[in-house]
C-alpha cells in the first residue's frame, strides 16, 4: 500500500527485516513503523533484537533481507552516512561529545559556520547555538565547556546537536539509564516539546517499564527477533506488556525476605570522608539486606567504596561481626570479609578479555593457593560448581567475560565474590542494565546468600528495587543519611521526597506517583 511521498503515514517504515549472525537469527521478518511526531518505545529483553534493529536502521549493519522506507520512499541505508543524510539521528547510551570543547563547538562540530578563508565565524556560531538552546528551554551557556556539565546536561546537548541538522527521527538508546529521577523529567519535557512543535519522531529504547507509560505514545515489543506486537500504550496494561515481552506468565519478581538474625554482620560508626560522607552510621544484620538509595551524587557509591577499603576515609569505625577492622586497601576489606561489587561491570567488575575461570580466581587467590602456588584443580572444581549453581550461560569456563551477556556477566561478578567467602557484600546497582529474567535470578542469588548468614548492603537508585528487595531502606542526601524506612513503611514518593529534600519535593512527587501507578 504505497502512499504518496508528500503525505506519508510513516516517517520510517521497516518491512520484513531479516538479519542473521552465525548461529542466531537476530531479526526474523520484523516490521516497524514510525509515525511523525510520536514517541515510539521499543521494548524487549536483552538479546530480543532491539539494538540489532536500530543498527540496521543506522547503517551499522546491513540487513539480509527487507526494505527500509523513509517518508514512504524505499531508501537503502548502507552506511551511517546514509542514515544521517536521511535525517535520522542516533543517541547512544555512551556520551559522544568532545569534552575538551564547549557546547557551541560540539553542537556544530564539523559544520561550523565559516567566513571566507576557512575561518570559523564564532559570532554566528555562538548566536546560533544559544538560539537552539533557548528554543528548547535548555538553560545552558553555549560557551560552557562540556567537561563541566552533568550527565543530564550532556545528554541535552547531544539532543540539541541532533536538532541543529534538521533531524526527522531521533533514536534514544536507554537514555535515562545514566540519569537520576529529576533529570529524566527535564529530558522528557524536551522530548514532548520537540514532537509537538517540530514533529520529530522518537524511537525510545528502555528497560524501565514505568517510563514507557510516562513518555511513550506507542510501543513495539520484540521477543527473540520477532515483533510480537505494536500497541497504543494507553490500551496496554503493564502486566500484559511484561507478559508479551517475556513470552509467558509473569513470575513473581521479588522473593519474600526472611527475618534476619540478631547478630550484626556489619556496623559502621561515624564514617567521614571530606565533604562527601558526613558521619554515616548504620548496621547490617546477618541475613539482612539494607538498601541504600538517594539521588545521583548523594554518596551511595562513595559509602560502599569506603566501607570496603577501596577509598580512604578520614574518620569513623567499621566493625565486621562486632570486630573492629583496619582498612587501608581493598585487600584489607576482603581479608576481613567485606566485598564491594562495583556498578560498572564492564570496566571495574570483570577483566573483559580474561576467562570466567581467571576472573573467578582473582579475589580468592590467597584462599586457593598453598605456598604461593595456585591449586588449579581445586579452582576448576569450584568454577564448575559455581557456574552450575548460578546457572551461568557459557560454553565453558574458558569463555571470555566480554562474550557474555550483561546478566551473565553480573552472575560471574557475583560468583567471583562468592568465591572470596565474604560475610558482608556491598552490591552497587546490582541489576542496572539487566533484563527482567536476569534480575529475578540475581535476586534469587541474593536471597540464597542471606540464608547463609551474609549481610548485604545494596546501593541502588531504583526505588522499587530498594523497597521490594531490602529489609530496611536508608535514604541518603548530600553525603548523610536523612531517613530510614522499615520494610513496607514507605512508598516510592516517600523515598523521593526524602532524597530531594522537603523544599522542592512538591513538583516532583506528582510525577513519581504517576510512575508508581504505572508500575503497580
Amino acid at each position, binding site marked *: 500500500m504505497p502512499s504518496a511521498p508528500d503525505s506519508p503515514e510513516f516517517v520510517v517504515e521497516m518491512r520484513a527485516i531479516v538479519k542473521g549472525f552465525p548461529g542466531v537469527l537476530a531479526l526474523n521478518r520484523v516490521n516497524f513503523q514510525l509515525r511523525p511526531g510520536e514517541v515510539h518505545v521499543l521494548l524487549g529483553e536483552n538479546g530480543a533484537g532491539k539494538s540489532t534493529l536500530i543498527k540496521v536502521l543506522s547503517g551499522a549493519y546491513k540487513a539480509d533481507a527487507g526494505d527500509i522506507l523513509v517518508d514512504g520512499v524505499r531508501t537503502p541505508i548502507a552506511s551511517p552516512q546514509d542514515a544521517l543524510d536521511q535525517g535520522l539521528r542516533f543517541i547512544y547510551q555512551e556520551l559522544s561529545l568532545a569534552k575538551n570543547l564547549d557546547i557551541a563547538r560540539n553542537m556544530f562540530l564539523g559544520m561550523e559556520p565559516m567566513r571566507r578563508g576557512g575561518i570559523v565565524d564564532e559570532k554566528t556560531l555562538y548566536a546560533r547555538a544559544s538560539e537552539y538552546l533557548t528554543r528548547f528551554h535548555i538553560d545552558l551557556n553555549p560557551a560552557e565547556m562540556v567537561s563541566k556539565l552533568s550527565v543530564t546536561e550532556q545528554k541535552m546537548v547531544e539532543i540539541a546537536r541532533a536538532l541543529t541538522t534538521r533531524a526527522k527521527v531521533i533514536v534514544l538508546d536507554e537514555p535515562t539509564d545514566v540519569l537520576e529521577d529529576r533529570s529524566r523529567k527535564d529530558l522528557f519535557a524536551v522530548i514532548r516539546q520537540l514532537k509537538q512543535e517540530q514533529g520529530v519522531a522518537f524511537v525510545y529504547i528502555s528497560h524501565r517499564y514505568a517510563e514507557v507509560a510516562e513518555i511513550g505514545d506507542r510501543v513495539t515489543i520484540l521477543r527473540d527477533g520477532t515483533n510480537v506486537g505494536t500497541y497504543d500504550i494507553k490500551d496496554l496494561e503493564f502486566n500484559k506488556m511484561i507478559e508479551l515481552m517475556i513470552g509467558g506468565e509473569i513470575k513473581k519478581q521479588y522473593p519474600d525476605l526472611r527475618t534476619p538474625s540478631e547478630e550484626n554482620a556489619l556496623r559502621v560508626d561515624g564514617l567521614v570522608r571530606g565533604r562527601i560522607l558526613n558521619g554515616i552510621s548504620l548496621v547490617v544484620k546477618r541475613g539482612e539486606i539494607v538498601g541504600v538509595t538517594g539521588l545521583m551524587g548523594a554518596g551511595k557509591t562513595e559509602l560502599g567504596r569506603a566501607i570496603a577499603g577501596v577509598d580512604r576515609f578520614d574518620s569513623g569505625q567499621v566493625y565486621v561481626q562486632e570486630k573492629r577492622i583496619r582498612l587501608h586497601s581493598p585487600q584489607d576489606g576482603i581479608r576481613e570479609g567485606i566485598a564491594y561489587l562495583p556498578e560498572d561491570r564492564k*570496566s571495574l567488575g570483570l577483566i573483559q578479555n580474561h576467562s570466567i575461570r581467571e576472573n573467578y580466581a582473582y579475589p580468592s587467590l590467597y584462599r586457593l593457593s598453598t605456598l604461593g602456588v595456585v591449586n588449579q584443580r581445586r579452582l576448576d572444581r569450584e568454577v564448575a560448581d559455581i557456574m552450575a549453581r548460578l546457572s551461568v550461560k557459557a560454553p565453558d569456563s574458558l569463555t571470555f567475560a566480554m562474550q557474555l551477556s550483561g546478566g551473565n556477566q553480573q552472575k560471574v561478578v557475583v560468583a567471583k565474590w562468592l568465591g572470596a567467602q565474604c560475610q558482608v557484600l556491598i552490591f552497587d546497582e546490582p541489576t542496572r542494565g539487566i533484563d527482567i529474567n536476569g534480575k529475578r535470578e540475581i535476586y534469587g542469588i541474593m536471597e540464597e546468600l542471606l540464608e547463609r548468614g551474609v549481610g548485604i548492603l545494596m546501593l541502588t537508585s531504583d526505588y522499587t528495587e530498594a523497597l521490594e528487595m531490602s529489609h530496611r531502606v536508608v535514604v541518603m542526601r548530600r553525603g548523610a543519611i536523612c531517613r530510614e524506612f522499615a520494610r513496607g513503611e514507605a512508598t516510592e514518593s516517600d523515598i523521593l521526597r526524602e532524597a530531594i529534600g522537603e523544599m522542592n519535593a512538591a513538583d516532583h512527587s506528582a510525577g513519581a506517583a504517576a510512575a508508581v501507578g504505572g508500575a503497580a
Partner: protein
Amino acid sequence: MQRQLREIAGPLMGLVLIWVVILALAPIARDWEAFDNVLENATGSGLFIMCCGMTIALIGNCLDLSVGSIYALVSVVVGQLLVAHVPFPLAIAIALGAGAICGIINGTIVVVTGIPTLIATLGTQMAFRGVADMWGAGVDMEQFGKSFDWFGTGLPGPLFCSVIAFGILWFILSKTRFGFQTYAQGGNEEVARLAGIPVKRNIVLIYMICGIMAGLASIVYTARVDFAYVDRGQGMELLAIAGVVIGGTSMFGGIGGVGKTVLGVMIYESIFAGLIYLHYDAFWQQVATGVVLIVAVWMDFYQRRASASRRTGVINDSKRSLWSRLRLAC
C-alpha cells in the same frame, strides 16, 4: 589444548613460512647448521633470557626500557668482580643482585611517582648506563677463566641458562599466585586492586624479575665473548620487546606467556639468519629490527581491535585479526 594451539597458530605459521622462503632461496642453509645458528644466536646473546623477563613485564603492564642498560651495567659488575678474583659463583650472584636492584629501583619509581612506565624506565635507562660508564669505562675486564666462560660457550651453556630462565618464568606465570596476579593487574589494574591484589608490591617484583633476567642475559654474553664492556646492549630493549610481542604477548598487558616468547624470538632470529643467508648487508638487520617491531605491535593492536569488535558484535572484515587473514591467505 586446542585453544592454546589456535592462539599460537599465527606465529607458528609465520615461522614455517620464513624457513620455507630461506630454504627455497638459499640452498646453502639446507642443513642443521642454519637452525643451530639461530638457536645459538638467540641464546648466546642472552636475548632470549632478556625476552623471558620482558614477557612478565609486558603481561603485568610494566614496560621496561632500561633492560639494555642493566645488561651493560651487569656486564661491568661481573667483569670487575672477576678481574678482582672474586670466585665466579659469588660474582654471578652479586651481578644478578645488581640486576635485581636496578629492577627494584624501576618499580619503586613507578609505584611512588605514578608516572608512565615508559618515561620512568627511559629515565633509568640513561641513569643505569651512566653508572655503568662510571664503573667500567676504560677498565680492562677480560679473560675470566674456563669455568665462568662455560655459561657462554657454544650451545650447552647458554641453552642451559635459557632453559632455566624459561622454566622459572613459565612456573611463575602459569602456576603461582603471583603469576595469576600479574595477569590480573596487567589486564585491568583497578579490577585487580578491587580483588585485593597488592598491585604496587607486584609492580616492584615484576620489575625486579625483569632486571634479574637482563642481568642473567648479560652474564651469558659476557662469558661468551670473554670480556666486559660498557657500551653493550644499546637498543637491546627494543629487540626484547619485539621478540616478545611477535610471539603474541600483548603490549597492553594481561595476555601472553613465555611459550609464545620462544616462538617470537625464533621468528625474529630466523629473519636475521635469513638476511645473512640471502647476502644482505649487516645494516639491513637494523632496518629489519625496526620494521619487525612496528609490525609486531601493529598486529597486537589489530588483534585488540578485532576482539573489541567481536564484543560489540560488529562483524567487519577490515577489522579481522591480521593473523587470521594471513591464515586465510595461506
